[in-house]
C-alpha cells in the first residue's frame, strides 16, 4: 500500500504547502507586489517557535497564536515604509521583486547575526512519537497537526474574505483596484492589513516547517520562496482556494515520486507545474484572463 501512504502524505503536505504559499498569493493579489522575502518570513517564524520553546517552553501551537500580532505590525510597517512607495513606481510588479530581493538579503544577514548559521529545530517529540493510524497507515502526529493548522487558517481566511466587510473590500481591490477606490475603499489601509495577514500566515507556516521539513536555517528562505511561488502559480494567482489545490498537487507530485522514483523527486513537481501551465495558463483555479 505504498500508494495509499503517498496519497495521504501528499494531501497533508499539500495543506502545509498551501499554507506556506497563501500569504504570498494574498499580497500579490491585492498589491501586485512580488514578495521575494516571503520565504525569509517563514524562516523567521521557525526561529520564533524555536526561541520561545527553548527559553520559555512555549508549545509551538501557542506560538502560532503569538506570532499574529507582531506579524500584523511588521506587515503594516513594511507596507507603509517600503511597499507603498514601490506600488507607485512605473512597474510595481517587477520593482517590488527587486526591492524584496534586497529585503530578503537583509533579513538573511540579520538572522545570521541574531541566530547564527546553525540549523535550529524543536524535537518532534512535542507532538508525540507514536504515529496516528489513518486508513491503516501510520501517519506522524506532527503532519496532522500541521495540516490541521493549515485547514483552520484556510477556513478563517475564507470567512474573512467572504463574510466580512473588510474581506469583501480586500477581494474588491484584488478584482479592480481603481473601482475599489472609487467606492470609497482606502487601499492603503486594506493593503497594509493584507500585508500583515500575509506575513502572519508565512510566520505560522514557518512554525509548522519545523515539523514538516525539519528545522530552519537563515539560508532556507530562497528555496521556500521558490516553492511557494510554484504553488500559487499552480493554483492560480489571486485565488486562495487555488493555492491549497496547488499545494496539494505539489505535495502529491513530491510524495508519489519519492515513493516510486526518489531520484526524480526534485524534477517532478516542476515538470508537472510546467505541464499544467501549458494546459491551463492561469493555473488550476485562476480566472481566465481575456488577453490577446
Amino acid at each position, binding site marked *: 500500500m505504498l500508494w495509499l501512504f503517498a496519497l495521504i502524505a501528499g494531501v497533508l503536505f499539500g495543506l502545509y504547502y498551501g499554507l506556506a504559499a497563501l500569504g504570498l498569493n494574498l499580497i500579490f493579489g491585492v498589491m501586485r507586489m512580488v514578495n521575494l522575502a516571503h520565504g525569509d518570513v517563514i524562516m523567521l517564524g521557525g526561529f520564533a517557535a524555536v526561541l520561545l520553546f527553548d527559553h520559555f517552553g512555549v508549545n509551538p501551537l501557542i506560538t502560532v497564536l503569538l506570532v499574529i500580532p507582531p506579524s500584523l505590525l511588521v506587515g503594516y510597517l513594511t507596507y507603509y515604509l517600503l511597499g507603498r512607495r514601490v506600488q507607485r*513606481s512605473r512597474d510595481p510588479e517587477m520593482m517590488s521583486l527587486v526591492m524584496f530581493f*534586497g529585503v530578503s*538579503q537583509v533579513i538573511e*544577514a540579520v538572522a545570521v547575526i541574531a541566530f547564527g548559521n546553525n540549523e535550529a529545530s524543536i524535537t518532534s517529540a512535542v507532538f508525540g512519537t507514536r504515529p496516528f493510524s489513518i486508513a491503516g497507515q501510520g501517519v506522524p502526529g506532527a503532519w496532522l497537526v500541521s495540516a490541521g493548522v493549515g485547514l483552520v487558517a484556510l477556513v478563517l481566511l475564507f470567512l474573512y474574505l467572504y463574510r466580512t466587510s473588510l474581506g469583501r473590500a480586500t477581494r474588491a481591490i484584488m478584482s479592480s483596484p481603481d473601482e475599489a477606490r472609487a467606492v470609497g475603499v482606502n487601499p492603503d489601509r486594506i493593503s497594509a492589513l493584507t500585508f500583515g495577514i500575509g506575513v502572519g500566515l508565512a510566520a505560522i507556516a514557518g512554525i509548522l516547517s519545523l515539523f514538516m521539513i525539519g528545522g530552519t536555517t537563515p539560508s532556507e528562505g530562497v528555496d521556500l520562496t521558490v516553492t511557494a*511561488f510554484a504553488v500559487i502559480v499552480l493554483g492560480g494567482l489571486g485565488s486562495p482556494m487555488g493555492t491549497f489545490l496547488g499545494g496539494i498537487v505539489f505535495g502529491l507530485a513530491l510524495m508519489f515520486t519519492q515513493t516510486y522514483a526518489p531520484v526524480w523527486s*526534485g*524534477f517532478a513537481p516542476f515538470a508537472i507545474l510546467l505541464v499544467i*501551465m501549458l494546459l491551463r495558463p492561469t493555473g488550476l483555479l485562476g480566472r481566465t484572463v481575456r488577453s490577446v
Partner: protein
Amino acid sequence: MSSVAQRLREGAGAVGRRPRRQMVGDVLLVVVPPAGFLVASLVYNNQLLLLTMMVYVALAQGLNVIFGFTGYLPFGYVGFFGAGAYGTALSVHFLHAPIALAVLLGGLAGLLVAALLSPLLRLTGAYFAIASLAAAEALYYLISNPQLTAVTNGPYGVNLASVYNSGAAYLAAVVLVGVAMLCVVWVRRSHFGMSLRAIRADPLAARLAGVNVVRARTFAWLISATLAGLAGAIYAWAVSVFYPEAVFDLSISVFAIVFALFGGVGTVLGPLLGAVILYGVYNYIGVSQPQDFQLIYGVLIVLIVLFLPNGLLSIRLRRLWRGR
C-alpha cells in the same frame, strides 16, 4: 491606437533615414565596452572578476532583449546559462569539438532549450516568470540526475581542464560583450525592435498594424536565450571544473535581473552600466567589508528601488526632460 504602433504603420522608412550622428553613437556603443574590458585586463589582473562581470553584462543585456522590449520576465533565465555551460561541456566530451565550436554549440544549446520552451510565451506576467523558473529547475534536476551520469556525469560535475585557456576565454568574453551590445543596439534601432515595443505598448494595436506578435516575441526569446547560452558556455570554459549547481544557481538569474533593472531596461546603456556598477560594488563590498557583505548589499538594493525606481538612466532622462 498607441503612438508606437502608429509609427510602425507609417513604415520602417524612419529606420533607414537614421542620422549619421546616431550611427556613430551606435558603433561606439558596440565597440567601446569590449575595448574597455580589454584595456581593463591590462591594468587589473583579477581576470576572473572581469570575465564574470562581462558574463553578467551579456546576461543583463540578454534579459534586456526579452524583458526590456517585450515585458516578459524569465525568472529562470539561468536555465539557458546552465544549458550553455553543459552544451559546451558535452560538445567537448562527446563530439571532441574544438573549444571555439563548443562555445558556439553552448549558445545553440541555449537556443534549443528556448525553442522547446517557446510555448511558455503564451503565459504572461508572474505566470511566465515562475513557469520559466520551473523549467530551469527541472533542467537542473535533469542534468544533475545520477541516472544520467553516463551522459551529463550527473552530480559529479564537469571537468574541462583539457581545453582550459584563461586568456582565450577572456577574449571570447570580450567578443561576447560586443555581440550582446550589438544585439541590443540592433533591437533598439531596427524595425523588429519597433514591433516589439509596439507589442508591449498595445498588442492588439500592433497586430492590427500587421505585426506577427507570436513570431516577434519568439524571436526575441531566442536571441535572449542564445546570449545566455553563450555566456554560460564561456563561463564554463573559464572556470573549467564545476558542479551542476554552480551553473544553475538561481542567484545568477536574480543578479542579472537586478543589474538590468538597476541600469534601466529597454535602453542600450542601462543594463551595461547596471552590471558594471552593481557587480563592481558587490565585489568591492565583498573584498573590503566581508563581514557585513550581504547586509550592505541588501540595504543598497532596497535604497536603490526606493529612490531610483526607474533605473539609473532615469536620472539623466529626467534632467534632459527638464532641460527641454
